[in-house]
């Protein structure tokens, strides 16, 4: 399936884009999706190790299943406030 992943902060700057598209296996787990992003964008690989993923604006676990049409984002360690 085709997914789109929002990127923010350092991830956005390292990839030079606010959103990337990726072709992934149906029912892919978050941890495998992260690995696939790392492979496609090596400049982000170190940051991805320290980043979370959100699905539909909630934090997911490594074992969460990514579904088609999910709103997906890579969430580097946050620093608001």
């Amino acid at each position, binding site marked *: 399936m085709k997914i789109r992943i929002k990127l923010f902060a350092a991830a956005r700057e390292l990839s030079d884009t606010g959103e990337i598209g990726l072709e992934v296996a149906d029912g892919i787990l978050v941890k495998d999706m992260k690995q696939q992003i790392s492979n496609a964008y090596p400049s982000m690989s170190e940051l991805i190790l320290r980043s979370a993923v959100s699905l539909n604006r909630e934090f997911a676990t490594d074992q969460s299943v990514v579904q088609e049409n999910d709103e997906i984002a890579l969430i580097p360690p946050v620093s608001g*406030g």
Partner: protein
Amino acid sequence: MIFITTKAIDTSKVLESVKSKQAGASVLFVGTTRQFTGEKETVQLEYECYEAMAVEKIQQLVDSVQSKWNIEHCSVVHRIGVVGLGESSIAVAVSSGHRQESFEAAAWLVDELKIQVPIWKKEFWADGKTEWVHPSGTPKPTSQDLNSAHGGS
């Protein structure tokens, strides 16, 4: 009152928004751009956010505050974009019948916001370098997240 803005925060309006005749106490927290971190000098900060998720996460934190403490009102405003020295990036206000609840709830909310809400800060150092501030911890799903997975209310 929960919102994210690119404009200067009117902290007195944030405080005003939690006023209540039922409240004997209000606590307002304001986070501002600090000039020095140890020896390093900051000239400005720039904040970026994942706005849809940030607003939802802040609302969840406010809901948690309402359920954990006996409070009247709770408001959170976060500024994004460039925030100059001495300017405010965040204002949190809580009101309650008695003061302990407001102090505890406001401190807890700011702590959690810094862990759970997708907002990022970029330092602009005086030496011309810039740096996204990415604390060592990875944002972790909370039990609330797990319960409401794919919820997104």
